[in-house]
Structure formats: structure tokens, C-alpha cells
């Protein structure tokens, strides 16, 4: 187990190294000059050159990358060109909000997706099942921005059940998490449905029924834990997908997370922030996958980590 963890961590570091290199390279060749942005429109050519030198942006690519890595080893993510703040501080101040939103989103998609998937499986072939499955297509195909605004408009503006955007209480979390979760719930309900249908045919379900257990217990205690197994592996992948969705949802609901930071940074080619956010989100994805793999044996005792 310790050896497994160590090996996976080494692998993760290598992946992150790869991500950092590619990102750095892409930003290096990107046709946008950060110095021009910093210097402003009144700057003279001399000022521009000065700034370029101060930031070391006149150096060859590998030197720049090497220096970045060196700083990274000291935990230094650099300083934002335009926000003039330590990137670590910027990210750190926004990370909790993003993590909370993601946790909420995952909770929503799991609760919604699994529940609806189970219901569809139990009512297989009936109108309810078909309705739910069509609903899942709509969920998968609806643009998040539109879903978010719609939820906001109906539940916050019209009905006033939830605050219109913002951050802080549980009530603030509900709509953004729902928006983020709806897409995934479509996927999960479909997966859960087919997984559940398969599990319900399994021998051990027949055994459980032969024991005289009631229907609820057969479904909750025997079918559900087994049907969830293939889905656990998907949660790791999900974190990566969420990273994209978060940009949209955060901006709709004024959620102070990393997505907004990234969006602004991309618009203005604030390279240190883009690098920082990329690395942090890649770390989240890698750790999320690792976590999913570590959780798997807890859910399924047959899985051994070696």
C-alpha cells in the first residue's frame, strides 16, 4: 500500500511536470505579448524593454522554464504580471470556494444521477423510465450558462428561495452546485441505470431475496453498493470535466473561485496566473484520480492496490 502510494505519487509528479512543460511552451508561443499589457499604451519602447528584462522574458525558453521550475520547488508560483500579487496568494484565496463548489457539484450529480438512475432501473421500460432518460439527454445537452441563468432567474429572482449569487452560506451553494451537477447527473443516471439493471440480474440479488429480505433492503444494501462500483472510477475523471464547467458557473453566480481567476488571466495573458491555475487544477485532477483509486478498494473489497 505504501509502495503503491509512493509509486503513484512519483507518477503524479511526472505528469504534473509534463503538464507544466506543455503549458509553458504553449504560452511561450502564444501570439500575445504580456509585456505590452503590463507597460500600458503610453509606454515607450525603452520602458517595454526594461520590463521585459526585469521579468526575464528576454531569456531563451528553456532558461525561463528552468527558472520557473526552480521557483516552483520553493513553493513560489511567481507573481501575477497584471494583478501584481503573488499567484499562490491569489489561488489560495480562491481555492476553498472552488473546492466547495466542486464538492457541491459532485454531491448534486451523484445524488441526482444515482437516485434517478436507480428509479429508472427499477421502473425499467415504463413511461417513467423513458421520461427520465430523455431528461438525462436534456441535462447532458443543455449549455451550463443557460441552465445557470435559468435556475437563477426562476429560483432566486422570481421565487426568491435562494440568494442571487454570492458566496458564504449553504443557500448560496445550492444553485451553483446544482448547475454544475446537472450535466453530470445526466451521465450518471444513464450509467447507474444500466449498471443497476445488470446488478439486479446478479445471483447474489436472488440470494438476498431468497433470504427473505424486503425489497428496500435488497436494493439499498445489496444492489446499490454493487451498482455504484463502476461509477466510482468515473468520479476521478469528473474532476477534470468540472474544471471546465467551473469557469462558467462561477461567473454566472459570482462565485469567488479559481475559474474566474483563470478566465481573466487567459483574456489578458497573465502567464504566471495561467500557469498557477493550470498546475493547481492538474494537481486536483491527478489527486482526484488517485483518491478515486484509493477509495475503490473500500467500496469494492476485491480490488487490491499493488
Amino acid at each position, binding site marked *: 500500500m505504501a509502495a503503491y502510494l509512493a509509486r503513484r505519487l512519483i507518477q503524479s509528479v511526472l505528469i504534473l511536470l509534463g503538464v507544466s512543460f506543455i503549458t509553458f511552451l504553449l504560452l511561450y508561443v502564444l501570439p*500575445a505579448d504580456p509585456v505590452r499589457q503590463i507597460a500600458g499604451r503610453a509606454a515607450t519602447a525603452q520602458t517595454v524593454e526594461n520590463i521585459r528584462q526585469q521579468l526575464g522574458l528576454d531569456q531563451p525558453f528553456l532558461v525561463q522554464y528552468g527558472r520557473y521550475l526552480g521557483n516552483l520547488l520553493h513553493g513560489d508560483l511567481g507573481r501575477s504580471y497584471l494583478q501584481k500579487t503573488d499567484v499562490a496568494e491569489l489561488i489560495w484565496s480562491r481555492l476553498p470556494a472552488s473546492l466547495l463548489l466542486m464538492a457541491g457539484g459532485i454531491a448534486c450529480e451523484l445524488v441526482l444521477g444515482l437516485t434517478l438512475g436507480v428509479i429508472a432501473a427499477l421502473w425499467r421500460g415504463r413511461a417513467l423510465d423513458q421520461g427520465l432518460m430523455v431528461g438525462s*439527454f436534456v441535462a447532458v445537452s443543455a449549455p451550463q450558462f443557460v441552465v445557470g441563468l435559468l435556475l437563477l432567474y426562476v429560483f432566486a429572482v422570481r421565487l426568491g428561495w435562494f440568494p442571487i449569487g454570492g458566496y458564504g452560506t449553504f443557500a448560496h451553494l445550492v444553485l451553483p452546485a446544482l448547475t454544475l451537477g446537472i450535466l453530470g447527473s445526466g451521465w450518471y443516471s444513464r450509467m447507474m441505470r444500466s449498471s443497476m439493471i445488470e446488478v439486479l440480474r446478479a445471483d447474489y440479488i436472488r440470494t438476498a431475496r431468497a433470504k427473505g429480505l424486503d425489497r428496500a433492503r435488497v436494493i439499498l444494501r445489496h444492489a446499490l453498493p454493487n451498482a455504484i462500483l463502476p461509477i466510482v472510477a468515473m468520479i476521478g475523471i469528473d474532476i477534470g470535466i468540472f474544471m471546465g464547467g467551473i469557469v462558467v458557473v462561477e461567473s454566472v453566480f459570482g462565485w469567488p473561485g479559481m475559474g474566474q481567476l483563470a478566465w481573466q488571466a487567459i483574456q489578458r495573458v497573465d502567464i504566471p496566473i495561467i500557469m498557477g491555475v493550470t498546475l493547481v487544477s492538474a494537481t486536483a485532477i491527478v489527486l482526484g484520480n488517485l483518491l478515486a483509486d484509493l477509495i475503490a478498494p473500500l467500496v469494492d473489497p476485491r480490488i487490491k492496490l499493488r
Partner: protein
Amino acid sequence: MTDVTASATKAPAGALRRLLRRKLAILGLAIIAVVVLGALFAPWIAPYAPEEQLFDGLTLEGAPLAPDATFIFGTDLLGRDLFSRMLYGAQTSLVIGVVANGIALAIGTLIGVTAGFFRGWIGGGLMRLTDLMMAFPALLLAICLAAIFTPSLWIVAMVIALVNWVQTARVIYTETTALAEREFIAAERTLGAGTGRILFRHILPHLVPTVIVWGTLGISTTVLLEATLSFLGVGVQPPTPSWGNIIFENQTYFQAAPWLVFIPGAAIVLLALAFNLVGDALRDVLDPTQRGRD
């Protein structure tokens, strides 16, 4: 009851005919046909040019017009006929949904199968590459790539394909490893079947259902990804319409001009639904063990 012996199933007379026996599949095919025909014959069907900003297409205050007899889907913020734009947009969206998604599927399948079938350093290397891509923020990659090349429909399709293959590769990889363990693969080896034969005749056909499922599910996400890219300025460039960028252009107007968001939104959902229905049916039809059931 374990083996229901040879029923009267006759030799197959074409997957298409069996497909046509399913009502839902027909519905799906019909929707797809409508969209494809609409896209193909857009120049003849569309009452206006898609980029034509009509003089009478806006109110005096510059607001778009709601659907009426002249503009059956209403007009957009520039006073263009939404119906015409939807028709032409179908061309773009089909290319993105079918081509980009198809390429992504092909790459994903290729990498997944290769990694799953040839373990060792090739498989390991490919899976590390997949892990790397998975950890990479896809949107950022797409933005950078699209900014480096000049965005055009085909570049956008390539970019989408390039960032979208990862999930497919993962899933195919898992299935391939499981398939490679199956006994009939061992049986093929004892017959002396070469790697190529096993891959193409025995592994790939079994992956078809998965590929179909991922392919159909991927259509709406790809169409929306194109829209996101358009929104970021690296997608299909205006005024070329796509269903996705029509939504994105107008999304903040969902209250003031709901038709601008919900008509293309419904179109995407419907198209995705249609592909899913056909995909579902196709998967059953192509699987001989499912025949004669349900």
C-alpha cells in the same frame, strides 16, 4: 432455461432493415434526416442569407423580433433571420458533431485499443499520455491551439478532436484489456491468428457498442464545446452560424429574447437525442446476441 436454442431467426437481411423495425430508431433517423436535409438544402430553403442583417429585422430600439409570420424563428440581435441561421448553422454543427467527434472517437479508440492490447511500454506510454491529457485543462489547450493557428471550421474541428479523445481512450482501454483476457481471443491465438486479425476481426467489432455510445453521447458535448470556443473567440468565426455559437452569442438575452437561446438549445438536444436513439438501436442491431430479444 439457460439456453434458448436456435429460434427461427433467419440469416440477417441487413442491419438497416432491423433498424427500421424499431419505432424510436425511425424517429431518431427522421430527426437526423431533417437536420441533414436542412443543412444540405439550406441555400434553397432559407428565406434569407444567414449573415444578412435585415433592415426590418430589429425594432427601432435595436431589439430583436420575436417569432412571427415573416420570421418564423424570430430575428437575432443583428436583425438576422434566425430560421436561416439555424439552417446554415446545422452545417457547421453537423461537421463539428460528426467530424470532430468522429476524429476524437477514432483517436481515442486507436490509443485505447493499442494501449489495452499491447501492454508493456507502448501501452504504458500511451496511458501516461492519456493521464497527462486528462490532467490538462482542455479548454486552455484548445484556446492556445486555436490562437496559434487561425481559427476556421476545420481547425476548430481538429482542436476539438485533439482535446476530446481522452475519455474515449480511457474507456476503450479498459474494455480492450478485458476483451484481451476473454477466452475466444485465446482460442484465436491457438488457431494461429495474427495480431492484426485478432485486433480487427475480434477486438474492434466488440468495441463498436461502446464507441457508438460514446459517439452519440459526445455529439452534444462537442457541439457545445465548439460554442464555448466561439465564445472565447477561438471557434468558428462570426458571422458563420453554428447552433452552439448562436446560443453563446445570445445567452444573456435568455430573458429578453428567449427564442434566441431556446430554439438552438432545443435543436441541439433534439439532435443529440436523435443520435442517441439511433445509436441505442444500432448497438442492439449490431449485436447478434441481442437479436430476437426485447
